[in-house]
């Protein structure tokens, strides 16, 4: 437990910093009130608008833990939103709960199929994840535009609107959806052995195979789960705006999601993952977007501002950077880079340098093959 807390410390500090900065600029930033039977306040807004990102980041966490990546989530958002909105718009009774339920179910089902497709490409056909999901990243947008006929489909359906704007006992439905998904995922991976097996395969695929883990099914399942999460995000996003935009719904959200997962402490090289870390990461990324507005950063500088903060977060998370910064204050000097470390030596050395793998381990020197 303490080890996990230590890993979460940096993202927590970053979040605290962001919130403190907001509080300094906007004194009422932490205020939460109930208006018309619904919670209001900047913090609630962050969670409310951050729900789609959070959902996608959760799915992305499992994929990244398996040493993969899913670039297609933004496109899946668009497909899911387009499907749901088209179905509702075309229905005889757009306002009936049954129509909305059918539309949401269809959208989620289609998203699951898209995720399954990604998983099939990666786990069965062994295509590199970044390439495999790039296919759907491009194709998905096209499919979404075909579904909406190239238009922005708007829907007027009270039950559908409520998915985003409704509330349950004063708590916005989006927050309930987010919390339920987190809980469900936690039960699924941490109360079963799924999480352990995923971490084992992501950390060392061959060791996992020799220990008897069936990696293929698990990988397909992870991509499918990621697809469903993206589909759910698509529903929330389109319910929020009451429209489906094949071009712009969920645009670039895959990058924010990857960022959130990484800030949360899950390495892109796979292995151990943290659901709590991902939740924190998603909240941080969303807070950042909110901060841009509350601080009144001019729109033309918003992206640069965001980039600078992200850069600082990444620096904080780099053990090497921390060691360098801490060095003048500590007793020792920063650790000297290992002579065989990849990318550290001058380039002309490369052709005569041994491969870095196994160079330091005497037991692993002379294995043929």
């Amino acid at each position, binding site marked *: 437990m303490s080890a996990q807390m230590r890993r979460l410390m940096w993202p927590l500090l970053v979040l605290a910093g962001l919130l403190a900065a907001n509080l300094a600029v906007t004194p009422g930033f932490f205020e939460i009130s109930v208006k018309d039977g619904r919670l209001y306040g900047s913090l609630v807004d962050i969670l409310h608008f951050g729900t789609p990102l959070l959902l996608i980041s959760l799915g992305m966490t499992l994929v990244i833990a398996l040493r993969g990546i899913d670039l297609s989530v933004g496109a899946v958002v668009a497909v899911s939103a387009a499907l749901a909105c088209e179905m509702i718009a075309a229905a005889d009774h757009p306002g009936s709960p049954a129509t909305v339920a059918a539309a949401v179910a269809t959208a989620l089902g289609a998203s699951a199929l898209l995720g399954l497709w990604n998983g099939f490409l990666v786990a069965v056909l062994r295509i590199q994840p970044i390439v495999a999901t790039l296919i759907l990243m491009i194709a998905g947008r096209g499919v979404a535009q075909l579904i909406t006929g190239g238009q922005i489909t708007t829907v007027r359906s009270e039950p559908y609107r409520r998915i985003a704007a409704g509330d349950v006992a004063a708590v916005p439905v989006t927050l309930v959806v987010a919390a339920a998904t987190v809980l469900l995922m936690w039960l699924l991976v941490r109360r079963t052995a799924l999480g352990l097996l995923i971490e084992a395969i992501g950390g060392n695929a061959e060791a996992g195979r020799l*220990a008897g883990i*069936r990696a293929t099914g698990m990988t397909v399942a992870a991509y499918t789960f990621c697809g469903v999460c993206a589909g759910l995000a698509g529903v929330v996003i389109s319910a929020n705006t009451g429209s489906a935009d094949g071009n712009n719904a969920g645009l670039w959200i895959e990058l924010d999601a990857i960022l959130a997962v990484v800030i949360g402490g899950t390495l892109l090289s796979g292995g151990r993952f943290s659901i709590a870390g991902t939740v924190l990461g998603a909240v941080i990324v969303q807070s950042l977007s909110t901060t841009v507005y509350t601080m009144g950063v001019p729109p033309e500088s918003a992206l640069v501002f965001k980039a600078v903060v992200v850069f600082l977060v990444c620096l904080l998370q780099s053990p090497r950077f921390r060691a360098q910064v801490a060095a003048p204050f500590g007793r020792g000097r920063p650790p000297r880079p290992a002579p065989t470390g990849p990318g550290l030596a001058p380039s002309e050395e*490369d052709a005569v340098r041994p491969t870095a793998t196994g160079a330091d381990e005497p037991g692993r020197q002379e294995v043929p093959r």
Partner: protein
Amino acid sequence: METTAEPAVHMSGIVKDFPGVRALDGAGLRLDPGEVHALLGENGAGKSTLIKVLTGVHPPDGGRISIGGRPADIAGPLDAERNGIATVYQEVNLCPNLSVAENILLGREPRGRFGISPRRMNRRAAELATGLELDLDVTRALGDYPIAVQQLVSILRAIDLDARVLVLDEPTSSLDRDEVRILFDLVERLRSRGVAILFVTHFLDQVYELCQRMTVLRNGRLVGEFATAELDQRALIGHMLGEQAGELDRVEERAHREAPPPGTEPLLRARGLGRSGGIAPYDLDIAPGRIVGLAGLLGSGRTEAARLLFGADRPDTGGVHVDGRPVPLRTPRAAIAAGLAYCSEDRKAEGLVADLSIADNLLLAMQAARGWMRPLPAKTRSELVERYIRALRIRPAAPDTPAGSLSGGNQQKVLLGRWLIMQPRLLILDEPTRGIDVGAKAEVQRLVAAQAQEGTAVLFISSELEEVLRLSHRVVVLRDRRVVNALDNEGDLDMDRVLAEIAEGGAQ
């Protein structure tokens, strides 16, 4: 042997420590100009480490190095190059997408008025190639040429550096016979120009063909330096594997000899099991409670034979019966279900998941067998983990410690523990004592003997022949990727007999 006054390289008393293990402990080497010198030793003997000390990859923790008679302090790979030492590694590390000329002259491209001059570069590379009678189109992409030619190109690159010492680390392991011929011709031409060549290989026939002298290492120590003409293969293997009684504690004396007699119905029966490029079809029987050892040199097919039994690689021919029932060898999963367990020789790459804890690593196989929907109850978990950490004396004993931070010996014990928890009926151990310290070695041996006494069948693979003889009831000898003989061991099997089989067995 045309010896000049000063050796090209002289290393003596070299010590190199890695966390938890001393890789080199008084290793040395003397390399004369104009000779091809073999560096020999089994897995973990320290060959690669010694080379890496010479080429500046690892700074030594003790000992002296002199180059051309002058003491040298090699600070890094670049410094080694400046000292005239060039290295060609087993895996070609050039850029297949660049041209041959670009590869040869990478980082030293001849420059003209407008930067790099491709014309002069190609001319220089072509000169180098023709100088060694190689017929190469230097403008073609390196990747268009077979691996052997790529090896030659990496040697050309070394020659352009005007190397006086050329280190060839297992250059022939991926080459076919004709390609080896081309490589040897080139080496011979370089030798006649006075270059000192250090040749690391595990193909002994090639050593006798090419080398004048050889240095043998074992367990990080210098065993001796021999003239090829004065030491036959049989004696050489003896030096490599260690004929004298080991330094280890004696495993409880021969208790395991009371194991069931050879007549017992075998637990495992393999017939005609083989895989092309891996191991020729072989037969194997192992009865419960018996330890069968696989003996042979590195590259003789020991690991390949074991991996087929476990389904880690798919066999082309033959099949396996456990308890008389056929086992489909498609995946390790099927083998595990049949009661087999396999500890890989490569703990890091194929055994442990470094960033998972000791506890998670211990329980991984059991959890995989139960399936993800049936997690081990927390109580069972902690009981099992605690019991095996204690029984195997894993240090540190904290179950949450990441496995990657353990010493080699403790990593090996965690891996062993993972399979002992499964209570396997056949335990396949591939080099379980490699790279671990002497104390841990004795403990692992004791565990293996104890396991067999409880009725587990064991297949034991080790480069240390002494260890194989001490533990095994039966020794299967491999040579050149074939099983050549199987010898019963009633505690009286003679090391000489096994060595003779390893050196000459199955030779037609």
